[in-house]
């Protein structure tokens, strides 16, 4: 596959690894914010190959993992209604709410369907005018424009039986919250390449300036991640801080203006709770007032469903990089992919699941 295979070349990876070894002279803590990076790092075994001075911390960049329990509970409540066809990306189906998941709701009789694109949910609304089609719109800036586009398309086609249960999150406010925390240990960041494909890298310049941290926008293949790390480490070693773009083949300074326009048209920025972390200011997207007819929360009056997060799960500390997944007392014991306590164990991209899948050192 072009743009994939050449970025997995082991010979070049070896050279980049050697260059990283030569560059590093003292310990550094670098966070990869994005779950996609975490997955690629674990899958390629980069944590085993990097010099011991480089500590990678897995950040909160998994939309499934940070979706609040109450959003799942609201989804399950809506899905249970007989007139509803509830649609979702595959990621969210297994995620446990406080007592059920969408998969469990399906077993209990709900019409829950998996889609690959939100436009498929719009097609379902078109084909089933007598039913209410609801789409669980999760994701970061990468996914929000497409979900917004689905809403606008339904509106354009006059489909009144389509709505979004929206639970979108934004990356820069999360980085700001992590950097502002007194417990912060992270010295440099790999920023998410696909979020930046939409938003552009300029969004991160104020963060790098204010907190004096290097931030490198990074792609998702083996060589991308190694090159991104090398760029962060070079800045750290040189005492510099700034935004660099490793993923130039997809990311520009200003991103994708068309996608940003749709996002702004459909969604407004609000404070929002992140599962395991708490409420972060201006970190979420909600459907704008004039589109309320397409907002499933209002349409099905589920805003009253409120839930407290379970306490045994330390996913919050994991997502903030305060502990490693296997540092949690429940890891691999009460909490496994079969019986997850928190979403970081459910999602394939969650730090806990990635650790469990690829790297159970205690068992190895």
């Amino acid at each position, binding site marked *: 596959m072009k*743009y994939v295979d050449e970025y997995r070349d082991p010979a*070049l990876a070896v050279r980049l690894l050697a260059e990283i070894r030569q560059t590093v002279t003292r310990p550094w803590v670098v966070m990869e*914010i994005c779950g996609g990076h975490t997955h690629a790092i674990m899958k390629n075994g980069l944590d085993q190959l990097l010099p011991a001075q480089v500590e990678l911390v897995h950040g909160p960049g*998994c939309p499934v993992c940070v979706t609040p329990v109450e959003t799942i509970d609201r989804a399950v409540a809506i899905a249970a209604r007989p007139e509803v066809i509830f649609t979702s990306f595959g990621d969210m189906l297994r995620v446990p709410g406080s007592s059920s998941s969408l998969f469990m709701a399906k077993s209990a009789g709900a019409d829950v369907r998996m889609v690959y694109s*939100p436009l498929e949910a719009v097609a379902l609304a078109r084909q089933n005018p007598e039913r209410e089609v609801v789409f669980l719109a999760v994701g970061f800036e990468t996914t929000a424009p*497409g979900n917004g586009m689905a809403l606008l398309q339904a509106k354009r*086609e006059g489909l009144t039986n389509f709505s979004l249960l929206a639970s979108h999150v934004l990356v820069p406010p999360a980085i700001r919250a992590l950097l502002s925390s007194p417990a912060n240990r992270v010295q440099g960041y790999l920023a998410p390449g*696909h979020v930046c494909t939409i938003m552009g890298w300029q969004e991160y310049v104020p963060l790098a300036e204010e907190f004096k941290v290097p931030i490198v926008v990074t792609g998702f293949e083996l060589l991308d991640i190694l090159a991104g790390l090398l760029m962060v480490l070079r800045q750290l070693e040189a005492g510099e801080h700034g935004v660099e773009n490793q993923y130039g083949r*997809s990311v520009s300074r200003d991103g994708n203006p*068309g996608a940003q326009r749709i996002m702004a048209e459909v969604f407004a920025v609000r404070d929002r709770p992140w599962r395991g972390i708490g409420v972060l200011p201006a970190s979420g997207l909600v459907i704008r007032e004039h589109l309320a007819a397409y907002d499933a929360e209002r349409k099905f009056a589920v805003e009253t469903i409120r839930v407290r997060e379970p306490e045994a799960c330390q996913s919050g500390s994991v997502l903030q990089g305060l502990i490693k997944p296997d540092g949690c007392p429940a890891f691999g014991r009460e909490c496994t992919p079969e019986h997850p306590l928190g979403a970081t164990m459910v999602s394939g991209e969650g730090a806990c699941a990635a650790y469990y899948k690829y790297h159970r050192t205690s068992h190895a």
Partner: protein
Amino acid sequence: MCLAIPGRVVEIFQENGLLMGHIDYSGTVNTICLEYVPEIAVGQYTVVHAGFALSVLNEEEAQQSFAAWRELTQAVAAQGTDVFGNPLEK
């Protein structure tokens, strides 16, 4: 967080008033919305996420990275072995 995969545009068309395209990933083809990349042409590569094309891939930038990596790491004579010093199995 966001799984997005590069593919080649093989066809561009309108469907329900939206700019759509067929994208080929080494022989597997699916239908993708191209509304955010109206400038894209057949034969170009795009990064696809959840049914939407996010960007037109910049071949020149891609070539530059490779040139830079080769140059950057030329000094390293580790070629042929893995990071543990074992011969590479290709």
